[in-house]
Every structure is written in C-alpha cells, then in structure tokens.
C-alpha cells in the first residue's frame, strides 16, 4: 500500500485551546499518513487529544499548526466522510429512523430508497423494532449503535470513529467488530478508529497510532501484520498478545 498516495497526510498537527486561564496544548505534534483502504486505530490516555484530532480532520476544529493533506482527486471530504461521535448525539426530536436518515437529507440524497437501507443498518446494529422510537426511549448502548448506523447510511469512504463501541457489552461489541470488518472489507472503506480497547485495536487495525498524554506526541506507530480476514481465532495467535503488550507498554510511558 505504501507506494500509493496517502488519503490523508497529517503533518505536525498541533492544537492549542484558549481558555480563560491561559492556553491548553491539546495536541502537541502529531504526524502520520492514512492510505486508502487502511484501518488505522488511535489509542492514547484520556484527554490526550484523540477527539480533537478527529474533529480537526473532519473540519470541525481549526488546527493551530501543521498541515493536513487530503487526496482530493480520489476523495470528496464533503460527502464521503462518516463520523461516529464520542457522545451518541441523537436529535431528540427525531425518531430513530429519521435520526439515521439525517446525513441523507443533508447530502440531499433520495430519501425513499435510503429508508430501506436505514432499516437494514438498524437491523445490523441490532435495533430492529425501534425505528419509530424516540432517542430517550433507548438505553445508552442502543443510542450509540444508532449513531453508528447514522455514520454508515451515506456509505462514506472515510469513517472517523470516536470510541464507537465504548458503551457496548462484550458480546455485542465483538459482533459489531466483526460487522465493521466485514463492511470495511466489502466496501473498501478507510477507517480511523479511536478506542480504549487495546485488544480491539490490535484485532481490527492495520496500524495503531499510540499517542502520549497531553501535550500529545505520537509515541508509536505500530503496523499490525496479522492475517486477513481476521477471525476470532486471530486472538489466540502469540503475535496478537505481543502486539497488545507492546501497545500497553508504550501507553504506560506518560
């Protein structure tokens, strides 16, 4: 993959928040590339700037320094990004199905055929039967799953996922992991994935970016050379354990 042009090229990106009592350096200096079709995970201690980084990539925050290059020839940042936010952020005045359809409306796609797709996605995340519920009638994990379906509805090439499975139980999480891999492989998506689960990161990723505590720098960029397609057995491989340990150790450097 390395010979190809990177989809995203992140160079010395910094972010400084101005607060009432001075400046807060949220993102110290982060550089890495994401190639088309890659599955890249970002791990790092709480408050190190993972969310900040994703938001900068999505154009929701301005960076304070550095450069981000996007391969605009092959990728339209306006229509081909899907973002799963850390909070579920469902619109409380819309029913679940309409929440999932929100990007369809924003991108002015045809709503009618997408409705079917939305139903399928809701089924995929295990929420059939809740299409006509309001968000507040769902549990925390169910809301999070709705937000995953919403990020997928417009079939984006690049998925930015901020701890998408944080509120899910082990079994559901595992199922969602496998589903995500399936979608990623089938639809040739590029995924940037923030997680706190080290095993999850190893299991899913081609590469793992480890960030240090604030002001964050990149401590490690670990290529995961495990066979694809990944099945649950991958976890039993000794390399798996080694990768996990390596990440664990570099995380401990604070």
């Amino acid at each position: 993959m390395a010979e190809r042009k990177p989809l995203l090229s992140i160079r010395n990106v910094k972010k400084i928040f101005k607060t009432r009592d001075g400046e807060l350096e949220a993102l110290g200096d982060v550089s890495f590339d994401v190639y088309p079709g890659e599955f890249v995970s970002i791990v790092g201690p709480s408050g190190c700037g993972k969310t900040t980084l994703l938001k900068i990539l999505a154009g929701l925050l301005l960076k304070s320094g550095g450069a981000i290059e996007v391969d605009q020839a092959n990728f339209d940042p306006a229509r081909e990004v899907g973002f799963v936010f850390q909070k579920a952020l469902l619109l409380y005045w819309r029913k679940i199905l309409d929440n999932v359809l929100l990007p369809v409306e924003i991108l002015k796609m045809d709503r009618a055929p997408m409705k079917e797709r939305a139903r399928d996605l809701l089924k995929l995340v295990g929420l059939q039967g809740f299409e006509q519920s309001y968000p507040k009638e769902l549990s925390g994990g169910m809301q999070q799953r709705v937000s995953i379906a919403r990020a997928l509805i417009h079939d984006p090439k690049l998925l930015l996922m901020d701890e998408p499975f944080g509120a899910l139980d082990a079994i559901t999480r595992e199922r969602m992991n496998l589903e995500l891999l399936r979608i990623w492989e089938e639809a040739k998506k590029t995924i940037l994935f923030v997680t706190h689960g080290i095993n999850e990161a190893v299991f899913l990723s081609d590469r793992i970016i480890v960030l240090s505590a604030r002001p964050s720098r990149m401590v490690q960029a670990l290529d995961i050379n495990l066979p694809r397609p990944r099945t649950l057995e991958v976890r039993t491989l000794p390399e798996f354990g080694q990768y996990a340990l390596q990440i664990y150790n570099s995380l401990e450097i604070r």
Partner: protein
Amino acid sequence: MKTLALFIRKHYTRLLTLIAVLALWQIGVMVFEIKEFILPAPLTILAQLFLPRYASQHRWLTHISTTLSEILLSFCVTAVVGIAAAILMTWSRILRQIISPIIILFNSLPKIALAPLFLLWFGYGIVPNVMIAFLVAFFPIVINTFTGLNAVDEDLLDLVRYLHASKWQIFVKIQLPNSLPYIFSGFKISTTLCVVGAIVGEFIASTRGLGFLMKSAQGYMNTALMFASLLLISMLGVGFFSCIALLERWLMPWEES
C-alpha cells in the same frame, strides 16, 4: 381519547376559574351596590352581548370579524417576519448590528405616541392596523427565536457541519427544532401583543372593530358596552393563546412523557 379527556380536564379548571371570577364580580357589584357606569356587573355586560335588542344594534359580528382578522393577519406577518429577522441576524453579524439597535429603540417607544405618524404612513383600514399590531408584537418573536437559534449545543451542530451542511440546512434540521420551545414562548407572548396591537391600531384610526366600538362606548358613557367589548377582546386573546399552546403540543410530540 386520552388526550381529549386531558384536554377537557384542563379546560375544566380554566372554565371554573372564569366562572368563579365572574361570580365574585357579580356578587361584589350587587353587595356593594356599585353603579353601572363605574363597574357594570357581568350579567349587565352579557346582556349587551346576547340580548337581541342590544346585540343587533352593536353589530357584534362585523366588529369581531374585523378585529379577529386583524389579529390573525398580524400574527402571521409577525411570525414570518420575526423568524426571518432572527435568521438573518443569526447568519450575518453585520445585519445583526444593523437590525438590533433599531428594533430595540423602536420597541421602547409607546406606539400610541406615534399616532399621527402612523396615520400619515399607513392611513386607516385593516392593513394599517395589522402593521401597527405587527410593530407592537414582533420584538418578542425576534429575540426569542434569535436566542433559541443560538442556544444550540455546539456538538449538535458538529453533527451536520462535518457533512458540509449549508447554513439553511443547519437552520432547518438542527437549530429550528432545537429552538422550538423558545419560538413558542415568543409566539405566546406575541399572541396577546397582537391583540393589544390590533386594538391600539383601531384606537389610532379605524372605522370598525372592537376597539372602535369601545371608544364610542366610552363616548356614550356606556360602560356595560365597553366592558362587553373588553371581554370579547380578551376572549379573543385567551382563545388565540390556547390555539398556539395546542399547536405547540402537536408540533413537539417528543415532549410527551
């Protein structure tokens, strides 16, 4: 069915209040022997409304329909223009800085003091009265809508911003629904102001309407007729307010628990 029962129950307390107030009033007038031209009793007032002998003479329907159409028209104008102004102010800093001092300035002026100007600008008839009611009532809608549009959680805006949503889409999909409680309380304030505004408009210049009737009743010292018109005016206000409250519940089903 359930909502109907609820509805009835709600109105039932209100109806009771109304009846209680009227009864107290009637009894008070009778006990203290208050003269009619100082404070007429409710029954005397109702006689003006319903006894055919008076009712036909006062041509209630003409006056009510005039005032009512002024109120409804002015509310529509107020709602549309008010929300549009709030949107413009949200979108453009420059517009905000141009519009806001002027509306604040204008809003602290008593409209009745500008009566000659209004007559000059608008003349008389239904349209000018609608204009005056609009001037009286539009401020709460503008400022409430504006606050509501800006009181949106930044996170919710991010939700569509990353999809490069247009300003209009952000407005329609996020800001507007999110500010509905604000808009509706603006509406509620404006409903009664529209009523007041229509009447003030009729005071300033009119050929019919409840405000007209009231003024002439005042001239003839027909206090009962004055109160009867006042009663109708405020009933229009209460009825209109209730319609808005109903609309609010209908438009915000997620609020139900």
